[in-house]
């Protein structure tokens, strides 16, 4: 069969594309779909906290535990890290390697300050006997806020990895793509934090 068609063809059929087909890259769409699935994880944790958030088991409630000025500082840390990451992306577009690295470093410091403050808050609560095992409210609180904190920690590790990559190999197409993915991830975590400070902290204190 194959020989027959080969005989009838005047030209030898070409089965290999000589050039890469110039299809638009689907990395950003794929990463966006990952973020959306991550969003579902947080939705389930928010729903759990919504259901269990008032079950104090005669333990301490949000009014006694939450330190709103600390949460406000924490929120501003994450917000500052968002804008500095934006500046890193702007520097990246202008192919300014040094400026990109500096802004990424500042972003990482803000992120580390956020995680540090959150760990301080957690340790303070656990020291007061309000650990995750105290009540259903505290279990769901630590799971939701802890999952967000873990994401930020992973984001910082990713950020440091990319800083090393950019420092070593420069701002090539691959590194730019990776930085754009981390940009989406980082801003997405800030979006989740809006939900956390509004629904967990502020509305928890409201009672």
């Amino acid at each position: 069969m194959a020989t027959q068609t080969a005989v009838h063809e005047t030209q030898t059929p070409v089965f290999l594309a000589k050039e890469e087909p110039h299809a638009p890259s689907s990395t950003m769409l794929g990463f966006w779909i990952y973020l959306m699935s991550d969003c579902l994880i947080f939705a389930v944790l928010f729903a759990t906290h919504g259901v269990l958030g008032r079950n104090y088991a005669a333990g301490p409630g949000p009014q006694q535990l939450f330190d709103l000025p600390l949460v406000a500082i924490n929120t501003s840390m994450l917000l500052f890290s968002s804008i500095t990451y934006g500046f890193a992306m702007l520097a990246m577009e202008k192919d300014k390697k040094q400026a990109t690295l500096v802004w990424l470093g500042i972003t990482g410091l803000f992120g580390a300050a956020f995680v540090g403050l959150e760990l301080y808050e957690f340790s303070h609560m656990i020291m007061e006997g309000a650990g995750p095992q105290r009540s259903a409210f505290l279990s769901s609180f630590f799971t939701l806020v802890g999952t967000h904190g873990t994401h930020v920690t992973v984001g910082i590790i990713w950020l440091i990895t990319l800083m090393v990559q950019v420092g070593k190999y420069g701002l090539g197409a691959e590194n730019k793509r990776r930085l754009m993915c981390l940009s989406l991830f980082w801003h997405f975590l800030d979006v989740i934090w809006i939900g956390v400070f509004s629904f967990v902290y502020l509305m928890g204190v409201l009672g």
Partner: protein
Amino acid sequence: MTSHATEHSHGHDGHDHGHGETEGHGSFKGYMTGFILSVILTAIPFWLVMADVLSSPTATALAVMLLAVVQIVVHMVYFLHMNSKSEGGWTMLALIFTIVIVAIAISGSLWVMYHLNTNMMPAMTEGMMKTMP
């Protein structure tokens, strides 16, 4: 491309539409607008709760929820550069799908569980509560 991006800070129509990687970035103005709006939209709910501005907690809760939704939209537009055109509209479609699922998961859980609570609680006695696992 650099001068292009600075001259036309609003649109990305002029350049690089074939490459997904460099598409959909923001401008300095866009990031600053998003940042200032976010600061305002963060400060107001904290102020409302910490200074106890509104007399009724329900009104404060509604205001906090509303401001959170507005701030999420601001972040989506100015930081995540969400629009109906990026990736041929597929990111927007994925987002809408996720919002639907999130709404069903959260409102459904709250609805079912609060109804369970109201149905279960009167039947429970102190003794039953204490022997519960």
